[in-house]
């Protein structure tokens, strides 16, 4: 915990996403729509030692409170993530990432021949069939995707 504080400071207002599996911080930023155009401070810590995960990533975003649908999407690649909403240096809300029944637009279908991977004006959509281990199915081509395929599709 001490080491982590040294790496990434506390934030005044915003969201802290902790317990991200190592190497996935940048994907999480993509999912929550935080890019290099984001106007406030974003701190990213990677490969932070963690008792539970061995190593983990942490993302802290100033001036953005994640909404429920955004935290739900995080669960797709970080099922154990802890999301804290911070106001005036204090944690005012703790949320677990929880998989929704359907996921729209976060990742591409792993099947290159799927209609959603052509030039059609449609977002990908997946039905969540199981959460542990995760199994989702493309709503369109009906191909299932497991954790490995989801990771490859990021």
């Amino acid at each position, binding site marked *: 915990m001490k080491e982590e504080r040294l790496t990434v400071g506390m934030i005044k207002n915003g969201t802290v996403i902790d317990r991200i599996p190592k190497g996935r911080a940048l994907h999480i930023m993509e999912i929550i729509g935080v890019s290099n155009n984001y106007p406030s401070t974003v701190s990213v810590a990677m490969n932070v030692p963690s008792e539970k995960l061995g190593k983990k990533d942490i993302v802290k975003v100033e001036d953005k409170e994640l909404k429920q649908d955004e935290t739900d999407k995080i669960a797709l690649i970080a099922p154990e993530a802890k999301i804290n909403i911070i106001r005036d240096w204090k944690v005012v809300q703790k949320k677990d990432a929880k998989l929704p029944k359907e996921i729209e637009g976060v990742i591409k279908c792993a099947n290159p021949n*799927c*209609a959603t991977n052509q*030039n*059609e004006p*449609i977002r990908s959509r997946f039905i969540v069939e199981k959460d542990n281990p995760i199994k989702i199915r493309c*709503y*369109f*081509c*009906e191909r299932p995707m497991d954790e490995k395929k989801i990771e490859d599709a990021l």
Partner: protein
Amino acid sequence: MVSNKDLISIRDLSREDIEHILKAAKDIDENPAKYSNLLSGKILATLFFEPSTRTMLSFQSAMSRLGGKTIGFSDSKTTSTAKGETLADTIRMVESYSDIIAIRHPHEGSARLAAEYSKIPVINAGDGTNQHPTQTLLDLYTIKKKLGKIDGLKIALIGDLKYGRTVHSLLNALSKYENVKIKLIAPDTLQMPKEIIEDSKGPEIETGESIDGALKGMDVAYVTRIQKERFPDLEEYESVKGKYRITREMVEAAGKKLMLMHPLPRVDEIEPDVDTLEQAKYFEEAKNGVPIRMAIIAMLLGKIK
């Protein structure tokens, strides 16, 4: 399905839905005159982005026998798709020209995508290697018509089980029935995908590579074509193809009880002299495509409850 707007996948149907469609098809089959003007003034659009003989003709025949008309194409090269039009745009145009759409497309998920954009009912006539639900329904209809039931049957699926969408949908549908025993006979490289077996819980499933003696004791043998284009090596194709050829001797040895099916087109996986045997039911199977498609079209248009 009765409550659904579209028919996209066997996965969307319950056993009751399937039975309901088979029952309607039976009535159409037995009393065609009753239905001959049912869809007068209605138009079916057959959008075939990939070639097909049987499926398209049987859709057209089904619509004609219901008193309706058909418009459509069977070669995407002659359409705006060749100019880069999206399927979404094609569908939004076609829905204003017709009352119901039957679509075949080389990309998996296309039929579902079409249904998302279409206000009128969409029938999946084959989407890539994914689903071909009307074929599966006519296969089930053929089995039920001949054997009177589907529960408790022993069914062998033979040939290309990896890429053949008909066998994927069929296995999925059979898993909705009771005590079905299934043998999957295919070369290792063309065996049924693991995820489809996992998805089809229920039947007792046995897999094997050899066709020797595989027909024995079976109620149904469903043979599919081993597709040349799936093999990078022509020599390998020739060797595999030769091993999965159904001969007259094999069928005779399996006994009279056997029912031999094939979604067609057949190349040489069933020898022509098998055709005259009582067990050969594949042409009848193709014929059954008409009443099944009539039932589906009429149901989706709300003319059969």
